[in-house]
């Protein structure tokens, strides 16, 4: 626990000798800032890079599947953990982006990098949807539990709407929305290349692409939450009234965080759709909408590293539980959420950091 010690929570003045970008990546809004943390981080990345050489194809594809979801969790950490706005809307933006990718790529194909255009349009649509919904929410002064209710309702309305689009009249060009059965037939992510396009089916190349994207996203978000913008988000979470009385238009900051976080959910949506070449309303329904909340709450919503690690661990547990029956898995996930909320409301990882910090302090006091 030395790399995530209690002192990490007590940020004092920044070290003036440190370059700006390093100060941001190592800032007080993120646990894990010492050399030891970065050594472990580098070793973890190294292990992830060599993993496909030792694992079978199914495990590599399955890990890539896990990576798809982490962007959505990191986005929720930004919206809920850092900015304090509980959103159940992540899967709506996940679905919106996934369907957009499907519509674009089914209609225009995978040549000339059009799947990348599909990714960009999918993420763009989720950002646009989040901007519209977020504007209504934040500029309408909807907050707290009502924010959760409205975002959940929006998600369920969208999922229900998509579930009734089974008829042939529900098509956009050649792309059938497919109702409850979902949309299929979209091509995988395809990278244009001189010697011929590279289609990234669930395999090693897709794994590496997702790993690289995940590292970039994680480090980028670390910079964001430790920037002036991140400081204001945390201030809004802690005391919105005070933040406003320091001259910040808190609605604008909340809206920007919501759009970025929802855009990341959209990124998860397009990557998942490209990975499995399938998207359906069940990816957005009540159970699906609750899962990101559980991943983020269990790991520790107020920290990106805790969210990332927590999400991967909970996804692994959840997948293994589904072997015994998906409904049991949901029940156990619910229980896990209740236990964490009651006993470690900040999540497992920050809770453990605090516990070991207190233990270490007591030990130092005794000696």
């Amino acid at each position, binding site marked *: 626990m030395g790399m995530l010690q209690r002192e990490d929570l*007590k940020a*004092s*003045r920044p070290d003036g000798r440190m370059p700006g970008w390093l100060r941001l990546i190592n800032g*007080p809004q993120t646990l894990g800032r010492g050399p030891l943390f970065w050594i472990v981080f580098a070793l973890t990345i190294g292990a992830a890079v060599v993993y496909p050489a030792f694992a079978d194809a199914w495990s590599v594809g399955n890990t890539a599947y896990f990576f798809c979801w982490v962007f959505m969790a990191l986005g929720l950490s930004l919206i809920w953990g850092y900015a304090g706005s509980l959103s159940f809307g992540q899967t709506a933006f996940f679905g919106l982006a996934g369907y957009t990718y499907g519509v674009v790529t089914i209609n225009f194909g995978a040549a000339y990098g059009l799947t990348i255009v599909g990714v960009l349009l999918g993420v763009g649509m989720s950002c646009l949807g989040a901007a519209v919904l977020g504007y209504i929410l934040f500029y309408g002064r909807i907050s707290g539990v009502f924010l959760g209710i409205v975002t959940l309702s929006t998600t369920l309305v969208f999922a229900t709407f998509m579930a009734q689009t089974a008829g042939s009249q529900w098509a956009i060009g050649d792309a059938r929305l497919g109702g409850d059965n979902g949309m299929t037939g979209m091509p995988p992510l395809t990278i244009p290349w001189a010697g011929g396009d590279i289609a990234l089916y669930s395999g090693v190349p897709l794994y590496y692409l997702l790993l690289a994207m995940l590292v970039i996203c994680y480090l980028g978000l670390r910079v964001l939450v430790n920037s002036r913008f991140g*400081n204001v988000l*945390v201030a809004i979470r*802690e*005391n919105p009234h005070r933040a406003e009385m*320091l001259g910040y238009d808190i609605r604008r900051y909340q809206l920007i965080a919501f759009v970025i976080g929802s855009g990341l959910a959209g990124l998860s949506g397009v990557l998942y759709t490209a990975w499995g070449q399938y998207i359906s309303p069940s990816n957005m329904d009540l159970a699906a909408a609750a899962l990101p909340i559980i991943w983020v709450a269990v790991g520790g919503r107020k920290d990106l590293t805790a969210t990332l690690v927590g999400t991967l661990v909970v996804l692994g547990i959840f997948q293994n539980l589904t072997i015994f029956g998906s409904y049991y898995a949901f029940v156990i996930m619910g229980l896990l959420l209740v236990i964490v909320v009651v006993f470690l409301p900040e999540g497992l990882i920050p809770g453990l950091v605090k516990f070991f910090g207190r233990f270490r302090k007591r030990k130092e006091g005794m000696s």
Partner: protein
Amino acid sequence: MTILRTEKLYKHFDGVKVAQDVNFSMEHGEIRCLIGPNGAGKSTFFKLVLGEHQPSSGEIYFSDQKITKLRSFERVKQGIAVKFQVPGIFSELSVWQNMQIAVQNHLHGDSMTSAIDKALAFVRLTDKAGELAGELSHGEQQWLEIGMAVSTEPRLLLLDEPTAGMTPEETARTGEMIQELNRKGMSILAVEHDMEFVRQIAHKVTVLNFGEIFAEGTINEIEANEEVARIYLGTADDDE
């Protein structure tokens, strides 16, 4: 030159009048204390000035500029700062981070760092820069909030019961801080119940009662006013 002025300010809540024909004016560089029995409308008046309530009618001017329609954060940007009765700090962040959030809206780089250092020294919290704000004593939390408010170098500082819950020593030190800020040119409007403290800092006192300005003058004039003594000892409704 007036720093704050209100004209025929009214505020009604479902027919209940909480501010009535308030024509208030204070000069630049003044320390004004706002007193009155519970339910007199002091907090409502503060909220009207801060933009947390919109007046039913009337106008508010800050340095002769109309701010009635401005939102709270826009008023703060104009040069108004506030310290709340219950310390409005970010408990889970360090003292330094609290100050940084207050200052980063106005300053960058080295000038931000030196402004934070200056404000921390002023409120005697330099040694506590790395502590979590929520772990400070009540008095220190009050000072931290004052530090956050003044680090933005406002022209008008609003203080809502700045000494609530403080020990006599902390109260005296807070009074010194307010006078020091005023000497540097900051105008201060404070809601306060502690008449000893009012005597220590106020240039002028305004008495509110039932949402109206009841009396105004120096502390000696107010203390000599029998009507003021009567409303304080009377049976005014408690609604604040």
